[in-house]
């Protein structure tokens, strides 16, 4: 053991060499892993990329005058289309609800299985994986890549590097290009984009996302996760000792060391210190150092280690999805207990179910007509020549249905106010009918008059709107101003 000197020396401390405050990035050369988690990641990558690139091309018949794209954020038309669901600007709370649902969903999954989002589903992971796959196709696996980078520049090296970057940029462009398909008619934008007739914003966003995809997945990679992304910090704080995280089972692995064939495994751990887990790691850490901030829990080290364990004839799972409590229990010879049902997982589950049902209830029960009555603020009231008091209102009728409707408007009879709609002839005894155009907002101006000369400040009345065809009734309570006593 080296001696640790705690007594300060009397001579002045030696001048330290000038130090750069910023550590240079260490190039990481992840080796290709083989195994079940690698397979899961390939499948996840295929499905997620497929979803991203194909969804804008799906059609969804909605009838005349409305876009037929299954998923479309139509900013010009102020609508959001998601298959059979159509969200109006007044219903932006559904989008907020979706965000909350997604957040709690991540909480739940994280408390159960650790950072699976980072490892399998995050776009940064998916595209980086794709970019590394391209890199491997051009430059070979880890050892070859290291050799190539050390080799002097030549035709072979230049061709491989340039080829790689060309394919990267192409993927980046297809990624950025696919993004704009979600905001315009996909077929139309694909046709007009290359002949220079698409809107300027389409070129701007396609260019921006091409650049960010290339920069983030191609050149920055794990630095995005370690330095830029706040989510690993949040998500790491959400996992706990009962969450299934990628874990090195030190109770089984230590003491580690090289092992020769035929030697006894008595008195030593299963880890043969082959460093395969380090070589496949895309963020360049050694999982055997314990849980680390950089770890994106992609499980490639599990695949690498399992392969080695099979060849040396030891059971697999030296690195595995495991919980901290289980590893600690085994270390002291106890049987590990897995607790997936815990207060927090139950809470997240209940919250998710509640919000999802609330949203589903809202979506299923929302009407296709919305009634808003806005009282004139200026003037609050006017005195007519007869001395009666009149108030003005703006009525806004939102018709979300595909067909024109007719609404009958009246004031609940016991209140005695008289109603007039500007621009619509009122015949005594006949109902007042207001047409409302399909897929739009119609405004009407209402004039309401008191029955009596004397009035006292604020009163209220009920406005009743009845859909002539369906008989659907909307009532709206609104106020009536008169001079105070």
């Amino acid at each position, binding site marked *: 053991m080296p001696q640790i000197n705690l007594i300060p020396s009397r001579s002045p401390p030696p001048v330290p060499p000038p*130090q750069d405050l910023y550590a240079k990035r260490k190039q990481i050369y992840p080796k290709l892993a083989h195994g079940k988690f690698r397979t899961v990641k390939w499948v996840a990558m295929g499905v997620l990329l497929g979803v991203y690139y194909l969804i804008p091309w799906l059609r969804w018949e909605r009838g005349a005058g409305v876009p037929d794209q299954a998923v479309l954020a139509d900013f010009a038309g102020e609508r959001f289309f998601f298959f059979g669901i159509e969200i109006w600007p007044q219903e932006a709370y559904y989008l907020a609800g979706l965000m909350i649902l997604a957040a709690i969903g991540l909480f739940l999954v994280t408390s159960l299985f650790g950072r699976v989002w980072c490892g399998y589903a995050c776009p940064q992971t998916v595209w980086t994986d794709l970019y590394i796959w391209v890199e491997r196709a051009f430059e070979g696996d880890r050892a070859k890549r290291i050799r190539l980078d050390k080799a002097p520049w030549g035709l072979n090296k230049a061709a491989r590097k340039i080829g790689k970057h060309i394919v990267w940029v192409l993927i980046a462009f297809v990624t950025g290009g696919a993004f704009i398909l979600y905001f315009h008619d996909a077929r139309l934008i694909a046709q007009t984009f290359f002949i220079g007739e698409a809107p300027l914003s389409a070129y701007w966003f396609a260019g921006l996302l091409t650049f960010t995809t290339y920069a983030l997945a191609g050149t920055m990679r794990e630095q995005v996760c370690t330095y830029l992304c706040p989510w690993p910090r949040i998500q790491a704080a959400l996992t706990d000792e009962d969450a299934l995280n990628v874990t090195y089972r030190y109770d089984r692995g230590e003491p580690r060391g090289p092992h020769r064939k035929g030697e006894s495994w008595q008195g030593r751990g299963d880890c043969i210190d082959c460093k395969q887990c380090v070589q496949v790691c895309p963020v360049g850490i050694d999982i055997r150092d314990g849980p680390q901030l950089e770890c994106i829990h992609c499980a490639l080290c599990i695949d690498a280690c399992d392969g080695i364990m099979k060849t040396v004839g030891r059971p697999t799972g030296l690195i595995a999805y495991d919980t901290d409590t289980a590893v600690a229990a085994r270390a002291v010879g106890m049987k590990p207990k897995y607790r997936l049902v815990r207060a927090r997982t139950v809470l997240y589950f209940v919250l998710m179910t509640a919000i999802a049902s609330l949203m589903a209830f809202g979506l299923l029960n929302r009407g296709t007509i919305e009634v808003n009555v806005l009282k004139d*603020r200026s*003037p609050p009231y*006017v005195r007519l*020549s*007869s001395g009666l008091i009149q108030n003005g209102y703006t009525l806004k009728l939102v018709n979300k249905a595909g067909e024109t409707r007719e609404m009958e408007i009246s004031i609940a009879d016991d209140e005695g106010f008289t109603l007039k709609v500007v*621009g619509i002839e009122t015949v005594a005894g006949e109902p007042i009918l207001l047409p409302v155009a399909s897929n739009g907002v119609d*405004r009407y101006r209402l004039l309401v008059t008191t029955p009596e000369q004397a009035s006292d400040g604020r009163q209220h009345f009920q406005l009743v709107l009845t859909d002539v065809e369906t008989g659907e009734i909307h009532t709206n309570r609104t106020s009536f101003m008169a001079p105070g006593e």
Partner: protein
Amino acid sequence: MSDHNKDIDQPTGVETTGHEWDGIKELNNPLPRWWLYIWYATIAFSIVYMVIMPAIPALPGLGTNTPGIGGHSDRMNVAAEIDDLRTGRAGTGSMLVDASLEEIETDRSLQQFAMAAGESAFGDNCATCHGAGGRGAKGYPTLADDVWLWSGTLDGIEYTLRHGIRHDPDPETRFSAMPAFGRDRLLTRAEIDDVVSHVMTLSGRGDDDNDAAGRGEDIFAAQCASCHGPNGEGDKTIGAPDLTDQDWLFGGEYDEVYNSVYNARNAHMPAWGERLDDATIKALSVYVHSLGGGE
């Protein structure tokens, strides 16, 4: 400074600039390279910008400023944007011009457009006097009620808008003049007292049994009835107010009515046909007509 004279700060190992204040030395930490490059780029950009865009003000012989080779100016940009806006609105605007006011009010899409255009034009031009939403003020008619001095029909409102009230430069302006009975000595103060007492009874504000009101009846018949009608019901063709209703433009209290008879009130409104285009006038007519229901 030659290399061997370099003063190296011990704890950090960084060269100092040689500047020292009270024993505190300034370290020579260079600017980051990326920062410098961006700075150089902005300098290069500014030179290009100065050549292309108007930049250097007040050079002798150049008028106001260097024009730049781009032929670019904010004034022109604004003019171009306004032109774009006009062309964009030309379709609906011309539809407003072509349609009659009744057609605009009954055609849903034209009406909605006219209401929106009228509301903003009203805010810009009319609300100064007539108040937001046409609420009116003393001397400025309320447009949200049912009282119209001249005419509350769509065409009548349009005419008033185009030609104004007592707007002398417009030969077709709406014109009427009530004599200043007191100031011009057409009636004595006592006579005015009497006639005001009578006028107050017309709208139920005065005391019928009052002697003065009785005396005033004859004066009213002689002096006022020719315009305001024998019963004070007014005449919209000449803008004579109805004196029997509850609406008083300049106030319905005794002193206010007395003041009106003594000095006469002849308010003005400019002719907007000179200032606003046809489509705006029509939009305003429809908007004003809708405020209180018009006639």
